[in-house]
């Protein structure tokens, strides 16, 4: 018998995961702050819950995926929150990219309620989910990890247990700093080639097929020619992750020179009015600084 699932936070990523779980035949009760956004999922068979607590009460395993630490506290804490609704023995799988300490604090609160929390952030994009290629990192007790593993494998093929509570979000933040840095370096390469006299499309084609062409560069590279609609991962979100990395680096005593430089360019993007644009807009920042029209 399949477990009853709950899901709180049905944005671009959360919504895509719920759609995939529904396609795999799971029963999902979901909640989103703005109900209208959940409508397509309701039409696909999802039950809507009025509060995060309702979603937790209806489920054996409850997931959440929200924007940042503050949004996580808003759905987890308080009388209408997830923690208040958890049934004994249920597992809470938290997929947001948030501060590791905040994640561990919530894990403690969940533990006091007689349940187990896992932090399970993902590496990938909406496209990666749709292609069934998402990788998921998991932190928390191994026994709970083994119980939810088959379910996580329904979401994506690469599921890795990295250690205790909070360590998966730590790993995720460490991974994500490279998204900012690699995109920044890609822009530097592209503008250098373009100003040397190589057509932008030709240079991009070479860069998307060379030794530095990561999956991220392969799917985001074309955004330098035409940004995606809707936006996948905006400048604010990218900077949130870089800020988490830089703060973590300072706390742990790990200097992060390339992350810090890249973060500065995302501050410039915000300063130039691009906060809500896809993070690849850092190309426009660099193009302006190079006297090139983007």
């Amino acid at each position, binding site marked *: 018998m399949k477990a009853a699932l709950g899901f709180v936070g049905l944005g671009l990523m959360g919504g895509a995961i719920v759609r995939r779980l529904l396609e795999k035949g799971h029963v999902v009760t979901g909640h989103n702050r703005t109900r209208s956004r959940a409508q397509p999922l309701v039409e696909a068979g999802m039950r809507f819950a009025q509060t995060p607590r309702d979603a937790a009460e209806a489920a054996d395993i409850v997931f959440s995926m929200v924007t940042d630490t503050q949004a996580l506290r808003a759905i987890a804490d308080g009388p209408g929150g997830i923690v208040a609704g958890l049934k004994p023995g249920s597992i809470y799988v938290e997929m947001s990219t948030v501060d590791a300490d905040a994640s561990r604090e919530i894990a403690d609160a969940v533990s006091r309620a007689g349940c187990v929390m896992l932090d399970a952030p993902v590496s990938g994009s909406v496209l990666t989910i749709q292609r069934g290629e998402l990788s998921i990192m998991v932190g928390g007790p191994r026994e709970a990890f083994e119980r939810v593993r088959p379910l996580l494998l329904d979401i994506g093929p690469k599921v890795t247990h990295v250690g205790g509570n909070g360590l998966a979000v730590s790993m995720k933040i460490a991974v994500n700093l490279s998204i900012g840095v690699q995109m920044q*370096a890609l822009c530097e390469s592209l503008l250098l080639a373009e100003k040397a006299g190589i057509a932008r499309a030709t240079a991009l084609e070479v860069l998307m097929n060379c030794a530095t062409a990561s999956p991220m560069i392969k799917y985001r590279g074309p955004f330098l020619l035409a940004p995606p609609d809707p936006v996948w991962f905006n400048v604010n979100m990218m900077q949130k992750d870089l800020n988490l990395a830089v703060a973590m680096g300072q706390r742990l005593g790990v200097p992060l020179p390339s992350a810090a430089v890249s973060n500065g360019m995302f501050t410039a993007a915000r300063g130039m009015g691009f906060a809500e644009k896809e993070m690849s807009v850092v190309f426009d920042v660099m193009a302006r600084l190079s006297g090139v029209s983007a």
Partner: protein
Amino acid sequence: MIENQTPGVIPMANLGYVGLGLMGGAVAKRLLEKGHAVTGHNRTRSKVQWLEAAGMRFAQTPREVAEATDMVFSMVTDTKALHAIVDGPDGILAGLRPGTIYIDMSTVDAAASRALSVRVAAAGAQMLDAPVSGNHITLKQGTLAIMVGGQAEAFERARPVLLDIGPKVTRVGANGLALSMKIASNLGLAVQMLAFCEAVLLAEKSGIARSVAVEVLTNSVIASPMIKYRGPFVMTLPDEAWFNVNMMQKDMNLALAMGQQLNVPLPTTATTNEFLTAARAMGHADKDFAVIFDVLAEMAGVKR
């Protein structure tokens, strides 16, 4: 010029190769395996006995290589080494015959390469700059990417031979532009590696085992081919550097000079280059540039 030694199957060419180091030697070996006749020269002959054993003819000077062949390749370390093999009475230029194609695969300054192409043209021959993206392993796997700059007609003639070296051959424009493209793409190697090292140390000091962090990172969305093969070097450096700190810094310096000349700011390139300087200062100049992990680890108070 290009004759069919195996009629109707593969066109074999009479090729020359000057500069048979780790990469050049591997390219020459591959050309021999594809059935081409190769005449080669290297400053130190003892280093190419393995190629002679594989059928390569040895020439005493770069000039003799050029005189004996229809298509001459070269691959050397830097602009200075390139001048040493092309200039003077024993250089490639002195031996070029009208109609010969000279393909330089070194990563050198684009302006120097362009100036050289003018002199090659004056000798009635044509030059292409054809730097590669990859390493001796990618080469052996047959997945090397080659960028080409120069005239389209010369490119079309050289193309079948270049495809025998690697499957991805792209003409990016006129003389010197393939080098510009190569220098632009190579800055990403060092920058991506520095960001990778930052991530490993951040994960490790959080309490995640280094091997687990490397495993996760080399399977994530940021895992470029370079990260997949070089990432594991933060566990154990290779005995022989694939691409040492000096070579990497040479390319970064070329990018930074190009950026200043063309007015393109390169903030992550400049930052990363400082870590290569630190690696040299700490005695790691001849190690694979993945050794920047050691520099950052030292700064983070972590043992390698």
